[in-house]
């Protein structure tokens, strides 16, 4: 027993979860997430969405064992299989996908967006399938479940891959209620309010409110409920980010008088839902830079942030008892 442990407290219904979000295709970050179950000694894993990567990096075969690749605005010429493998691993750590193509194929892709989309989809689906298999392998022989929902960046086809998977440990919980340890009902929704990036699963606030309403249908008692909603509540400080000019591609920070403007980018609908139902906990992400934990009325809201590009697993370990959060800890693994 620790120096400050309470004597005699019942911990029968205590549950530890590890929550992370916005891994955006990062191989290293996801592997850490799955390994985090045993490392952090938790009962379950919860993934909060935005699992698909953002970039596809062509590795161009120049013949004779030579390749070239442009990564992080720098062109590298690769000589031999070792350098090629090292670059592939670096691309995967960054959350990017890679395809090896010939000079002709890269020219075709540059000229045809359809080919790029097809390659993106193929690689994203392949990686998700690998991830599901990895979870089953690493969690085999345990009761640990890995609850996964999509985010606004994840197209429906990717959620379908998740749904179609025949997995013992990975649960697609998008749009449905799952009950953790038969005690903590968790409602899930990966949709977001509009963003400057025009992402696959964003919608207006009114429509988002309907999605959220549907997501919580079936929960009668919110005392121990968890909302796994991808977007943070509006104006909760977990949604602070630079104010962006939506007319540029990519969107750029708005600077007035030399001062970068910031603004809340969370959802009014999410805030309304949290304030109306007051669950025990809301897990969110979406705004990578707004890491933190706040209270919205009774509800504890957690955004662990994301640094997937550095291969860093940002997360939060939460220890729950019915109707109560016993402790939490932000991690940076």
């Amino acid at each position, binding site marked *: 027993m620790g120096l400050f442990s309470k004597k005699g407290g019942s911990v029968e219904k205590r549950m530890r979860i590890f929550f992370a979000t916005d891994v955006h295709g990062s191989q290293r970050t996801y592997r850490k997430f799955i390994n985090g179950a045993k490392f952090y000694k938790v009962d379950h894993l919860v993934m909060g969405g935005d699992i698909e990567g953002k970039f596809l990096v062509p590795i161009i075969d120049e013949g004779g064992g030579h390749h070239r690749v442009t990564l*992080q605005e720098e062109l590298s010429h690769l000589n031999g299989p070792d350098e090629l493998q090292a670059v592939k691993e670096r691309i995967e750590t960054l959350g990017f996908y890679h395809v090896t193509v010939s000079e002709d194929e890269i020219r075709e892709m540059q000229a045809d967006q359809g080919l790029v989309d097809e390659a993106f989809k193929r690689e994203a689906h392949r990686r998700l399938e690998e991830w599901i298999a990895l979870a089953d392998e690493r969690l085999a022989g345990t009761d640990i479940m890995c609850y996964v929902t999509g985010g606004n960046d994840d197209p429906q086809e990717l959620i379908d891959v998740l749904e179609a998977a025949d997995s013992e440990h990975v649960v697609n919980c998008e749009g449905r209620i799952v009950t953790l340890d038969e005690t903590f009902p968790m409602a899930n929704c990966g949709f977001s309010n509009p963003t400057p*990036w025009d992402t696959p699963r964003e919608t207006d606030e009114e429509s988002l409110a309907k999605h959220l309403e549907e997501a919580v249908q079936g929960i009668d008692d919110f005392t121990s409920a968890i909302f796994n909603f991808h977007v943070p509540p509006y104006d909760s400080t977990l949604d602070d980010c630079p104010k962006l000019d939506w007319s540029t591609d990519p969107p750029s920070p708005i600077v007035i008088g030399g001062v970068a403007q910031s603004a809340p980018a969370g959802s009014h609908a999410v805030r309304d839902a949290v304030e109306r139902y007051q669950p025990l906990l809301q897990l969110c992400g979406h705004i990578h830079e707004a890491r933190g934990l706040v209270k919205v009325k009774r509800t504890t809201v957690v955004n662990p942030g994301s640094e997937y590009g550095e291969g*860093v697993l940002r997360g939060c370990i939460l220890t729950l008892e019915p109707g109560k959060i016993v402790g939490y*800890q932000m991690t940076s693994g």
Partner: protein
Amino acid sequence: MATAAAKPEVFSRKASGLSRVMSPWSAFMYNFLTMGVIFPWTIVWAPAAFPGVSVWRASLFAILLELPIALAYVWMATAMPRSGGDYVFQSRVLGGAIGFPVVMSGFVIWILQWVALAGWLLANLGVSPLFMGLGVHYENQSLIDVAIWCQSQRGIVVISIVGAAAMALLLVTGFKNYVRLQYFMFAGTGILMVILLVQFLRTTPAEFAAAMNHFSNVVDGRVDYYNWIQKDVADAGIDLLPKFALGATLLAVPIVWTSLQWATYSVQQGGEIKGARVFKNQMFIIVGSLIAMGLSLALLAWAQERAVGTAFFNAVSNSYYYLITASGDGIGSVRPLPGMLAIVISPNPIIVILVAVSFMLASLQITCNCYIGMTRVMVGMSLDRTLPAWFSKVNPRFRSPANAHLIYFLLGCVTIVGYNYWLSWYKLTLGVTFACGYVFVISCLAAALLPYRAKALYEASPGARYTLGGIPLVTVFGVIGFLGGTAALIAYLWNVGYGLRGESPYWGYIVVAGVFLICLVGYWIGRAYNKGKGIDVNYAFLEVPPE
């Protein structure tokens, strides 16, 4: 692996992302300003502490001391481009049991001393010269009396607390407000550097002597002060024209380091810098600002000594810093600090106001830097649960960590009073350089061990490709920085010239060691307390194996 710039061949899709708002240029200026206003310390202290010193050469040597440290930080900053800087580097590579006490003691607690020092600079380099310069110009005794009060213990304490409170309020009410003021601070420091250089370069010792005599006569009623102060110190047995001594110059390097060690301060805000992961950006921000400021300081020191004359330069240093006086009358009310001397040369209202206001802005910039950097570290520690959750609470109205700011301001007030009213505390002025120095040295150690203790993190970083004879370059620079920084720390412990090594009962050593031990014990108590809540603090620092 060969590299070259070319047209990108990458495809992206529509997806939301992180936006960083601080440009590399702003980060460069941030470092430049952080180093900037501290230099008067070197010029007024080093000649008396180490006779035979060449201050401008010491400034150049200090660049060499800091260079490997700065390079090690470039690697670390690109490998871990997030806010929290040294705390993140050390805790992730060496573990929380090292990272927390080192950064908590060396930075969070000892940088409180900088809050006091910034207040001292505000009073002595900004407010007092403003009134004194105007008083001399208009021959108004009331203004001169106000200037002299500003240099008194009570005056410094009042000015320091007002400045600290104003900056805390500014930052609590929103970072945007500070950014607005920062542009004026940038401009102020630039104007200051130019004015000081122009004033010193256009003045001969004879012209300066005449100006100094007039100024001192108006302020203190003294006659022929320029020659008198030299005689007063020389009669006390001080050689005012000692031969150049390389050893003394090298010993002065750790004093210059007080300024140049802050070339790395932008890493505390790594999470906000655009392109923080790009190597050339961090080279520009950290190494570029170091070289720019190091050369500026060397030029200023050379120009000031040339303008006022070496004998006077050495005399006022001894008289002011070590209170050496044969007659017992001492230095008088005109403080021999660079801004004051620039005003002495030509006390017209425009020069007086420009120099004084620029120094005020630069001093307030230091106060802001203390708050900004340290509240971020405290928030990071709080999220790691090594500090209570109270510290990371964000004020919903102002959207800033108001609790962290409040506690830092209150502790800053205690430090201000202690520093100005307790001589033993004042003697520990450069204790802060020692304490911050050991943070940088331990970060260098973390850099040296990065490829071995955080292999995955290192291999994913852009610096991983640079090696020397098979040894990662970050390890090479980390080791050199560690050894160079350690040498400076040993000098602090060994040589009485820096003020840390006093007489028995060796308060300097006791205070430095005591602060560190308190933080170490605090870490273990916090760890035990959290364990009772099912929280293992170690999880905050340990990297989950990816394989």
